Structure formats: structure tokens, C-alpha cells
């Protein structure tokens, strides 16, 4: 049977039965929605919370927040390396604000007067303050993210009048303004949420978990956890160009093979979490377009615990760096869908940017020599751990590393850590050898290094790397950035990159790509720092 025809006839049958009295109204309205007006997204997992401020909200939840809530400001688009739209780190555009005025100690926003929440209530400065207060107060990830831009206290957010908000700086920080354009500082319908708050839950987290209370371009009309999320366009949206697609259905399809089949058969419109191999092969499918963009400020690396022998010896770490099968990993594990971070020419100069390639290449003789210098000519045994949640890439990577390290006498046992346990294991900082990804929303080298290499030993410094010299360089980069001293800034950045590549506590393997596959009739995909979809720009022809 022709499938399209089937759907059509089914719809028609439902429409006919709707003229009778027995058919429930919901059937007809839903069935009548035409396919052309709906975007069908398929992905492996869905949100567990519709509010990014919620406790333990997962990454798919961020996508809901991004599309259903507005922020004061957002980023402009530019054209990326691959020719597709890419957010412009440097340029901001107003969203709920119509004007932004940055001073020495504060920034003032004038709000749009016509913006309303989904329930029709106008967006006011009080809503903005309440939302930002909430972000810095609820704890957990949102508060942490706000802190990254020196946004820490409710007192910083001041209501000037109904449509004016001032944000006072705690200290000069280059990241404060960018941090206001990330997902977390979204503006929430404070009156609506307060109505649904309780004494135990003053911020109404339970309510926003299940409901979108924003002013954004879309609202969630149906959410079946683990199965689907249905979005409808907010026809009263004022903060940008009216989105082209009235309705979005986001279905969870756990099997990657099925997601691919759905795309190839033309049943699904867009999917962005497929194995690399599928993306490479789908590129040759004339019905689909694939866009691959490197993670901004993201690196997959091989980490070594520098607090414990044998990886406390830099020579051993360098030996490992000389023994990794970088190209094989690129070819066999990633199908070329990543940006290499190895094998820069010996003459290349370090750039004031991140991520950038290091100069190590496979050189087993050198690796053996370094091991011998470290007194480990006979090699040693250790365990190589990876996050099972990303086994598709991690497993071949680890198998290849295992095979390669064996050639210089390092015998590894591969340890699959279930996704749920991965963070716990990382936090313990006891794994000797592991592969992991870190990426920062805020695309600044010092931001990355502050979290990953600094002696404060944050959870992301998974190697427990502590070096006073490194700390000094990072601090100087931050201060010179805030002060706007470009020369000093560049020097510090080049300094800490060089140091990281000499000491090698973690060996960058590659810069992963975010890949999106969609039908040819879907256009308007934009790359965002959060790497999720922005429905507002998508168009279905």
C-alpha cells in the first residue's frame, strides 16, 4: 500500500466521521493537521524537564527552553566555515530587549513593549528580574552557568521601571554579556509561575517542569515523556521574524538504524544524533542534506591522572601522545567527520585561539625512548575507561588506542562505564586513563582552560592537573580580556596552550562535529553554541 495515500485516506476517513456525532474532536483536529505544516524531528532521547532551571534537566530539555523562552539578547548569525549560518560570538542582537546599553559597572536593557507571554500577559521588567533572580538562586547547573559570567546575586538585577532592567557588575568580566545570551537567563512568566508555586517550591519548579511559561516563539502543547514533544507556534511572538513552521513534533526513536531509515524514507524531516558513519553515507543521498560543524570550544581528549604513577611523569604522557593512532581514529572511528587536532607542522606557531592542533604524530620509536627515559622501558598495565553513553565513538577510539599502546608495551584493559556512572567516576578523579569530551558554551580559550586546566581543580579538570605557572597564565588571560588588552591576552593564551601541549595532562584527539541530517526541503539550519536546533529559523518548503 502506498503509505502517503494511506495517511491521506485515514485523514479523510476521520474527517468524514467527524461530521457524525460520535467522533471526539481531538481526533479530527489532530488528523487534519497537514504534513506540510509540521516538522518531524527524531532523536534518541527527549527532555526530562521543560525548564532549564529545573533540577537535573537533561540536554534535550535545553532545546525546549531555547525555543519556548526568550532572553534579553541573542547572537547575530554569520556564515560559518562550512558555509552554513553560524552564530556570531561577537555580535549580539536584541530579543526581549530592544536596546542594550553597556556601562562600566552595569548594563541597562530597555524591554520591548509589545512582547507578551503565551497566556497573553505582557512581559515586564519584574518578570526579567524574577527570572534572573531564580537563575542565580535555584542552585545546580543554572546558578553555576550564571556564575561563569559573574552573575551571582539577586541584588545585581535591578528593576528601573516597567520596561527597563539594569544589571550591575560584580567585577569586570568579559563573559558577563555573552553569558546573558546563553540558554539559562531566560525570561519566565513570573505571575503565572508564582501562582503555581508552593512553600516547598518557591520558584515553581514543579510547574515549569511540565509547562512552558515563556514568551518564546513556540510553546509545548503536548509532552509524553520519553515518547514525544509537540510544539505549536506562538502566533503572538514579537521578538523576531515569525517562524515558518506552525507545528513541531519531536519523536524519540531509540534505535539509530530506525532513525536513519526514517530519514532515508522521507518520513522524518530532521535528525541530529546519528552515528558518524550514517552521516557520511547519507551525504551521498540526494534527498537529504547534511550539515557538519565542529563543536565550538569542544575537544575530545585522552585524559591521564597526573596525581598517580605512571602518568605523574610528563615523559610517560608524552610517550602516550606519540603512540596514539590519530589518523586511524579519524578514519575508522569518526569516518572523517571531525576536525583533526594533531600533527601541526613543527614550524607552525601557536595561535591565540582554542582548540588548535598539537605537534604530536605517531612516532613509536620516540614513544619507546620516552618510556625508557621514564624508567618504564617494559611498559606497564593500566585501565582505559570510557562513557558507555557515547559508545558509538568511544569504543572504536579506545580499541584503537589499546591496540596502539600495546605496541609500546602499555597493556590496557578497557572499562565501559555506564552513562549514569560516568560523572561520578570523573568526580572521583581516580581513573588512570580515559577519554572524554569537554565543550564550553562560551567560546573563549581562557574559559576552557579555567575549567579544564586550572589549579582550582574543578570537576572538569579530570586529570587533577595543578601547575602554578598554568594558573598564572590563565589568570592573566582573564584579566587582560576584561581590561581589553589584546596583546597581553594573546600572549597569555599562547602561553597556556604551549604549556598544555608540553606537559600534556590530556591529549586532544579531535574536535567533534555536530551533524544534522535533514530533508532537502528543510532549510534554515543554524549552528548555535549549545548545538541544539533553533526551530525559529527552520523552513519547510
Amino acid at each position, binding site marked *: 500500500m502506498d503509505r502517503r495515500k494511506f495517511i491521506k485516506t485515514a485523514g479523510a476517513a476521520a474527517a468524514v466521521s467527524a461530521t457524525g456525532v460520535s467522533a471526539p474532536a481531538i481526533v479530527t483536529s489532530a488528523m487534519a493537521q497537514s504534513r506540510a505544516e509540521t516538522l518531524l524531528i527524531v532523536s534518541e532521547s527527549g527532555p526530562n524537564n521543560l525548564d532549564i532551571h529545573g533540577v537535573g534537566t537533561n540536554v534535550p530539555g535545553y532545546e525546549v527552553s531555547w525555543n519556548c523562552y526568550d532572553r534579553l539578547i541573542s547572537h547575530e548569525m554569520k556564515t560559518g566555515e562550512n558555509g552554513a549560518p553560524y552564530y556570531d560570538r561577537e555580535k549580539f542582537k536584541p530579543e526581549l530587549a530592544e536596546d542594550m546599553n553597556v556601562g562600566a559597572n552595569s548594563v541597562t536593557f530597555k524591554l520591548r513593549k509589545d512582547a507578551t507571554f503565551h497566556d497573553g500577559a505582557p512581559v515586564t521588567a519584574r518578570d526579567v528580574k524574577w527570572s534572573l533572580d531564580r537563575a542565580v538562586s535555584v542552585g545546580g547547573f543554572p546558578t553555576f552557568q550564571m556564575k561563569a559570567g559573574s552573575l551571582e546575586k539577586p541584588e545585581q538585577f535591578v528593576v528601573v521601571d516597567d520596561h527597563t532592567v539594569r544589571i550591575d557588575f560584580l567585577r569586570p568580566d568579559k563573559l558577563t554579556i555573552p553569558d546573558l545570551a546563553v540558554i539559562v537567563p531566560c525570561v519566565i512568566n513570573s505571575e503565572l509561575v508564582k501562582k503555581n508555586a508552593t512553600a516547598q517550591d518557591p520558584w515553581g519548579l514543579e510547574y515549569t517542569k511540565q509547562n512552558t511559561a515563556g514568551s518564546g516563539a513556540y510553546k509545548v502543547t503536548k509532552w509524553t515523556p520519553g515518547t514525544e514533544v509537540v510544539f505549536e507556534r506562538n502566533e503572538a511572538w514579537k521578538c523576531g521574524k515569525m517562524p515558518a513552521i506552525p507545528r513541531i513534533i519531536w519523536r524519540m526513536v531509540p534505535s539509530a538504524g530506525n532513525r536513519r*531509515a526514517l530519514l532515508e524514507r522521507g518520513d522524518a524531516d530532521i535528525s541530529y544524533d546519528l552515528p558518524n558513519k550514517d552521516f557520511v553515507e547519507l551525504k551521498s543521498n540526494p534527498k537529504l542534506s547534511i550539515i557538519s560543524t565542529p563543536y565550538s570550544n569542544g575537544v575530545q581528549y585522552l585524559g591521564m591522572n597526573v596525581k598517580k604513577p605512571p602518568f605523574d611523569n610528563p615523559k610517560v604522557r608524552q610517550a602516550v601522545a606519540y603512540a596514539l593512532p590519530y*589518523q586511524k581514529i579519524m578514519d*575508522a*572511528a569518526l569516518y572523517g567527520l571531525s576536525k583533526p587536532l594533531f600533527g601541526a607542522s613543527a614550524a607552525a606557531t601557536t595561535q591565540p585561539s582554542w582548540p588548535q592542533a598539537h605537534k604530536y604524530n605517531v612516532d613509536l620509536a620516540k614513544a619507546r625512548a620516552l618510556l625508557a627515559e621514564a624508567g618504564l622501558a617494559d611498559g606497564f598495565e593500566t585501565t582505559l575507561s570510557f562513557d558507555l553513553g557515547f*559508545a558509538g565513538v568511544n*569504543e*572504536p577510539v579506545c580499541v584503537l588506542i589499546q591496540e596502539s599502546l600495546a605496541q609500546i608495551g602499555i597493556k590496557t584493559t578497557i572499562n*565501559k562505564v555506564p552513562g549514569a556512572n560516568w560523572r561520578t567516576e570523573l568526580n572521583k578523579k581516580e581513573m588512570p586513563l580515559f577519554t572524554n569530551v569537554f565543550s564550553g558554551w562560551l567560546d573563549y580559550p581562557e574559559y576552557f582552560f579555567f575549567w579544564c586546566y586550572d589549579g582550582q581543580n574543578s570537576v572538569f579538570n579530570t586529570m587533577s592537573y595543578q601547575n602554578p605557572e598554568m594558573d598564572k597564565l590563565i589568570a592573566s588571560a582573564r584579566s587582560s580580556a576584561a581590561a581589553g588588552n589584546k596583546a597581553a591576552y594573546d600572549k597569555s593564551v599562547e602561553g597556556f596552550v604551549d604549556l598544555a601541549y608540553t606537559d600534556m595532562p590530556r591529549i586532544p584527539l579531535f574536535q567533534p562535529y555536530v551533524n544534522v541530517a535533514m530533508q532537502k526541503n528543510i532549510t534554515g539550519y543554524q549552528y548555535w553554541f549549545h548545538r541544539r536546533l533553533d526551530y525559529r529559523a527552520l523552513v519547510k518548503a
Partner: protein
Amino acid sequence: MSRSPGTGAAILATLSHARYVISGNPVTAFAFMLLGLLLFCAVFGPWIVPFDPLASDTAATLKAPSLRHWFGTDALGRDVFSRVVAATRLDLAIAVFSVALVFAFGGLAGIAAGFFGGWTDRIVGRIADTIMAFPLFVLAMGIVAALGNTVTNIVIATAIINFPLYARVARTEASVRREAGFVMAARLSGNSELRIALTSILPNILPIMMVQMSLTMGYAILNAAGLSFIGLGVRPPMPEWGIMVAEGAGSIISGEWWLALFPGLALMLAVFCFNLIGDGLRDIVDPQRRT
């Protein structure tokens, strides 16, 4: 006293009966041939494979079956044929050990329950009930997830979920024989209850347990494969059928059918073989047909 001539005669009689059953049953004969092949692969596998099952070759990834690579190569260029053959040992080991374990615990517990009755019966019954009330596959997952995904834990988990089955069969068979004449005769001869359970009950229900064991061997392999599918299988790069099928399954749609098909076939043949042998054994030990 000498028992050997009698035992020898019994073995001969059993063999001749087995030959009779097999000759009348082509499917069972086929299954025994398969078993021979599997055992051969398990014992000699590592020596007969054309390639090192662990060696990657990034120059020859995802090659379709050819004369050089009979079953093609996988994403890392490893020879699928070599991996399928080499995996036999591990898969059979999982099956054999889990079945041996559950036979030792479940079988004996069941015999005790059926033979002694009373409190023993009640306790074994409750344990079996409790395990049965769990969705078995999820219980196995839970055990492996909790104890860590090693081969040993897969074996233990498989043994635990099969416990009720064994306990039940052994219990039924033991309780049927509890009042049998020869058991009473053994009591009259001054045998202790424990001794009766071990010398009179156990050997007599062994054939029926053998059937059970053969059937659950296949199930053990399937179970391990299922665990692999959700990521709880053995550690890479060890080749194991389930993990190979699970990983290859995603590639069916992209056209690399050989990744899942060949390990899948091997797995199916092994399970198939154990199941058929179980059926065949049932025919052999079935007293109704043994006249």
C-alpha cells in the same frame, strides 16, 4: 564391588538407543553435527582463523565479504570471520558455566525441596517465586549493572534468572520419586536421607535435567546477547556474538548486512543446536519411548 561391566553395558545400551533415536530423527542428527562444529571452533578457533580477531586494519574497514575476508570486515577493519570463530569459545563458556552454576544450585535446591519437603520446600519455593515474580531479563540487567559488566557477572546473572526453572523441574522430578519403591527400599537398607537424595534421586533425574540444561544453554547465549544489545555485554575488544550482532544491527540499514548477519547466524545456530539437542535428549531419555 565391581560396577564397571554393568555401567559399561548401560552406556552401550544408552548409546545404541541414542543411535536409534538419531537415525529416526534427522533434525537431531543435524544438531549433533552442529555441536561438533561449535566445539571444534571453541577448542581450535584461535589457531584456525585466518586473521588475528583483535587486529584492526583501518585500510580495510567495512569491506563486504570476499575471498580474502569471508564474512567481510568491521568498522575497524577486523576480520569478521575470525571474530565469529574466535567468539565461539567465550559464548560457549558463558553458556556452559552459567548452566553448570544453576544446575549446582538450582538443581540441588530443587531436589532438596522435592525430596525433603516441608521447610526446605517452602524456602526454595519462596526464593523461586520471588525470582519468577521479577521480569527475568530486567533482573539479569540489574544484576549485571549492579555488579559490573564482566563475563563472570553475566554468568552469575544468567544462572540466577534460571534458578526457578531448574528448582522447579528438579523439585517435580524429586517429589515424584520421593515415594517411589526404590527410595523406600533405600531407606530400609539404612541409607540416610541425604544419601538417598544424592544416590537414588539425583542420578535418576539427571537425564531430565540434561534436557533442561541443553535448552537453557541456548537461552544463556541469547541472554548474554540481549545484555550486549543494551550495552551491558563483555568488555571490548573481546569478540562475542551478541555484542557483534548488537553493534552490527545498526548497520543493517546502511547496507553492511554482514556485520550483524554472520555473528547473528552463528548465535542462532548455536542456540538452535542446543535447543534441538535438548529436544533430542528428551526423546532419548523419555521412558515412554525407551522400551
